């Protein structure tokens, strides 16, 4: 049968393409796929840029750190996978110029460093920076501005580090992995790894941090990561983007979730477009199927022919759509080049396959049921045109579509709570729309007597095409809701980002402030016009046990938990709870808690170690064992850039420890002189420049916001096409009705007014419902997905109702113009 069906399917498909009948089907599918793959390409490129940007914080895609030298076998493994490898060795050492000295973080790197991001250099301390092309040549050193200021050196000075001497050739402004953690806080100095032995600094017992940096193709990186997970020694620690600083992770989490949500919208609009196209395809083929059956074709044969045709249309549309999607995305990237600040990574081809698979999945979900129905068209239709196929069972009619939508939603979000929330919201919204659509039909019937002829014609159209009206109302309502939702959620997200990153956000961290200098130090900052934040004491502590069980004996499923258990933390003690900290369990320290052995932990710490309130944690603080009971869990807003800690104790128990203080402050970018003065006045205080990290965070956010806006444009386009496709679906009927009306004496204006009335009514009602739906969904997404407060926006209602009416009326009028323009005689003769 297939052998007979294929030639017929191909021949009629080619003929129908020439005669233009399938153009609407193809257009709908093509644009839908183009929107989908366009979003996919752009999201994948910007997503990759975001990842790369975040990887810059590590100076690599993957970073292995250890306190012992890292074996060369890792280098071999990485190179076998085609990855780049560089090494970075860090240790604290005192740098001398003459009599002046400063404890510094010495970084010795091999050629190729950094693999991601850039080392920024200047010719003078705190001067204008430009990217470095290489690493320091042997015998050269690139110290940070603060180091130069502390020891009164400049470019050209000679410095002594251990047993070796170095010439300062450039000033180090930033290096990408500077902000990965706050562990290395002394000012950095960069030298060539080849010079390290000459310094004779590495001796048995020296505290040295070794890092091996890897970068390359994502699959190769993942492969090495998998291998290293097994092969690395317990003292070696793997770092990738997910274990980067909490600030970056927060931004990327939000960006990823939002982009997923945005692309999901395009997927759903795609499904709606295909459903409409399939419906039209069926309407157009009822007669030919009846005829084929009359001429002897079996039901299976007609179904096979239809399926083959639709499959072919789907494949062709997916191919053209993917190409258009790629072109649209490439064009957009060119247009936005200035905003993108550098080249985006090349697109990967995954969206093409996703486009094809999605097209087929949607086709199967949305086109198969109508095709099954089409194949049941009775042959009798050749004699009686009012005879159509029997209605499908509800399960068969909607089951595949529902399954396809659920599959696609889950596939895109891959998160059960969002999936459930979105699905339930969508189901409720569709049910509400269908109900209101049905009520509308009844309501309009009662309204017809009281309006003019044009309105009566328009409203009668809505009432008479009862099911079609409900379907269109649902489609328009969904489309408008999605557009409103994107505007609402996007604005909420952007405003949340803006709120969380004000322009005077702290840009310097100061640590190692001796307790006796704290007051003078803060006073100094204020006098220089810096905006200071809270100052907190700080000491390093190591978690040694949980509820009496040593952490070394405790397995942790979570890699972060293992990390928390393995390394030292900075801890603090305070009575004040900052506004960027929110208690989510237990209670904050009361006055009578001062002096008690309690600890407040952050949600990250709690989740990674699986802790509950009342758990007893054992710490090693400066060689002394100290036990505290978990009394509260805090959700910390890390991107406030205020001093924040995973572990906070009440004042009292740790007062006697040899802690120092830390604070952060905002210095105007032109205040470099004040900073140099500060370094001289408080030589033991380490200044940590957050500017670079902030620039990186801002850049990540900018890219994410850009992606969202681009996705919004694609979705808007997709929504309009769906809308036009819906209008197109009723064109044939409208043409005939228009001809009949004009034959009966109606002028063009009356018919046009009727069409406008119909679509405006449909649009206003869809817009109203969409505004309700968008407000509810926006509330849900803001509160439960993005964790931002939601404030209802009256514009949603205005834009929904007015915009919906105008949009649907305009699109409807444009799409049906030719209906009115065609001479009635041509239509009535069947032309």
């Amino acid at each position, binding site marked *: 049968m297939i052998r*007979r069906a294929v*030639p*017929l399917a191909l*021949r*009629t498909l080619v*003929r*129908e393409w*020439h*005669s233009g*009948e399938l153009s609407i089907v193809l257009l709908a599918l093509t644009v839908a796929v183009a929107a989908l793959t366009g979003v996919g390409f752009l999201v994948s490129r910007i997503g990759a840029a975001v990842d790369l940007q975040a990887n810059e914080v590590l100076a690599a895609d993957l970073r292995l750190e250890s306190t012992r030298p890292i074996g060369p076998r890792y280098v071999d493994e990485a190179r076998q996978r085609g990855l780049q490898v560089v090494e970075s060795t860090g240790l604290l050492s005192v740098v001398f110029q003459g009599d002046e000295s400063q404890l510094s973080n010495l970084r010795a790197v091999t050629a190729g460093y950094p693999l991601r991001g850039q080392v920024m250099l200047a010719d003078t301390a705190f001067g204008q920076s430009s990217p470095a092309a290489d690493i320091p040549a042997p015998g050269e050193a690139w110290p940070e501005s603060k180091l130069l200021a502390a020891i009164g050196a400049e470019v050209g000075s000679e410095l002594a580090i251990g047993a070796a001497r170095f010439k300062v050739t450039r000033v180090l402004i930033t290096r990408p992995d500077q902000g990965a953690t706050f562990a290395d806080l002394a000012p950095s100095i960069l030298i060539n790894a080849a010079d390290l032995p000459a310094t004779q600094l590495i001796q048995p017992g020296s505290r040295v941090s070794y890092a091996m940096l890897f970068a390359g193709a994502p699959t190769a990186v993942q492969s090495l990561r998998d291998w290293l997970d097994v092969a690395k020694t317990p003292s070696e620690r793997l770092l990738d983007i997910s274990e980067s600083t909490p600030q970056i992770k927060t931004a990327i989490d939000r960006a990823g979730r939002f982009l997923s949500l945005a692309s999901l919208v395009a997927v759903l609009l795609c499904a709606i477009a295909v459903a409409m196209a399939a419906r039209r395809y069926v309407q157009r083929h009822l*007669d*030919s199927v009846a*005829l*084929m*059956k*009359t*001429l*002897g*074709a*079996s*039901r*299976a*044969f007609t179904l096979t022919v239809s399926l083959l045709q639709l499959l072919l249309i789907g494949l062709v549309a997916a191919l053209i759509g993917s190409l258009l999607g790629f072109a649209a995305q490439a064009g957009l990237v060119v247009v936005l080049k200035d905003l993108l600040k550098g080249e985006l990574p090349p697109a990967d081809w995954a969206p093409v396959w996703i486009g094809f698979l999605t097209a087929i999945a949607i086709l199967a979900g949305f086109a198969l049921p109508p095709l099954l129905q089409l194949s049941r068209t*009775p*042959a*009798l239709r*050749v*004699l*009686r045109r009012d005879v159509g196929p029997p209605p499908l069972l509800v399960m068969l009619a909607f089951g595949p579509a529902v399954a396809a939508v659920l599959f696609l939603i889950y596939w895109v979000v891959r998160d059960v709570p969002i999936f459930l929330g979105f699905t339930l919201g969508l189901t409720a919204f569709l049910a509400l729309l269908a109900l209101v659509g049905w009520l509308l039909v009844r309501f309009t019937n009662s309204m017809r007597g009281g309006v003019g002829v044009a309105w009566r014609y328009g409203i009668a159209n809505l009432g008479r095409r009862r099911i079609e009206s409900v379907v269109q109302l649902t489609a328009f309502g969904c489309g408008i809701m999605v557009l409103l939702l994107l505007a609402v959620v996007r604005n909420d997200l952007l405003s949340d980002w803006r709120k969380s990153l004000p322009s005077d956000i702290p840009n310097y961290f100061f640590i190692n402030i001796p307790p006796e200098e704290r007051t003078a130090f803060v006073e100094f900052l204020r006098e220089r016009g810096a905006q200071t934040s809270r100052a907190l004491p700080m000491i390093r502590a190591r978690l040694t046990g949980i509820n009496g069980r040593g952490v070394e004996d405790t397995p942790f499923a979570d890699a972060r938990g293992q990390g928390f258990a393995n390394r030292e933390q900075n801890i603090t003690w305070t009575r004040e709870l900052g506004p960027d900290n929110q208690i989510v369990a237990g209670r904050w320290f009361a006055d009578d808690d001062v002096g008690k052995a309690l600890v407040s932990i952050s949600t990250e710490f709690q989740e990674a170690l699986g802790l509950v309130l009342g758990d007893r944690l054992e710490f090693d603080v400066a060689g002394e064992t100290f036990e505290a009971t978990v009394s509260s869990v805090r959700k910390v807003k890390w991107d406030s850039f205020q001093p924040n800690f995973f572990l906070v104790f009440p004042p009292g128990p740790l007062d006697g420890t040899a802690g120092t203080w830390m604070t952060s402050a905002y210095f105007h970018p032109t205040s470099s002189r004040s900073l140099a003065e500060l370094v001289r006045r408080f030589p033991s205080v380490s200044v940590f420049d957050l500017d670079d990290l902030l620039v990186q965070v801002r850049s990540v956010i900018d890219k994410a916001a850009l992606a969202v806006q681009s996705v919004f444009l694609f979705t808007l386009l997709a929504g309009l096409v769906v809308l036009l496709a819906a209008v197109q679906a009723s064109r044939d009927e409208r043409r005939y009705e228009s001809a009949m009306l004009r034959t009966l004496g109606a002028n063009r204006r009356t018919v046009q007014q009727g069409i406008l009335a119909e679509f405006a009514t449909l649009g206003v009602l869809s817009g109203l419902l969409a505004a309700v739906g968008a407000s509810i969904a926006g509330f849900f997404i803001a509160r439960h997905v993005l964790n931002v407060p939601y404030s209802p926006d009256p514009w949603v209602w205005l834009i929904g109702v007015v915009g919906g009416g105008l949009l649907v009326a305009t699109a409807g009028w444009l799409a049906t113009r030719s209906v009115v323009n065609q001479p009635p005689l041509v239509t009535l003769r069947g032309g």
Partner: protein
Amino acid sequence: MKSDIVLKAENLTKQVTSPEGPLTILRDVSFDIYAGESVAIVGASGAGKSTLLALLAGLDTPSAGRVMLAGIDVTNLDEDGRAKLRAERVGFVFQSFHLVQSLTALENVMLPLELAGRRDARPAALDTCERVGLASRTGHYPRQLSGGEQQRVAIARAFVTQPAVLFADEPTGNLDTVTGEKIVSLLFELNANSRTTLVLVTHDRELARRCSRILELSGGELLPEQAVA
């Protein structure tokens, strides 16, 4: 002349459900049609002509009674079985031509042969197109053809399988008088030459009189048969 019964209607009844209750469209209709005959089914609008045609051709199923087509009980066959029988034994000509708009004249004629899996579809269709006077129009699409030409394509499509029975439903209904006359002549000529049995539904008495028998329906019942003058 009268030999084998090619089409037999036995107590055919068709009832449908309407808002006013059950409606009987055909009541207890019985007759025999012999191979090579030309039979006109006539009657006023709503008499049940098209319903009878649909039952005879296996396009619809009766509420009671049965149809024997070429010795096969059509009413015992399922939808696909009836389709197969039509492919092998039946041809159709409709008032509104029912051509596939996306296929050329030749491809429309080839269609039933291809559905039957015939490998000689093209030469056979070309030959039939020539017989109906369409040799120069085979590459045209239906919309490029006049009404008369479209009906010639439909006639060629109906005869190309050399069916045992050809059903024609108001074949001249959409044509002007002159064209209609030509089409009718062609139909009868092909009927005579190919010994196909022609069953013609029409309200045109003149046309009916050109057939060898007339079956008249009134209110869903078959009136006593009268000899053709």
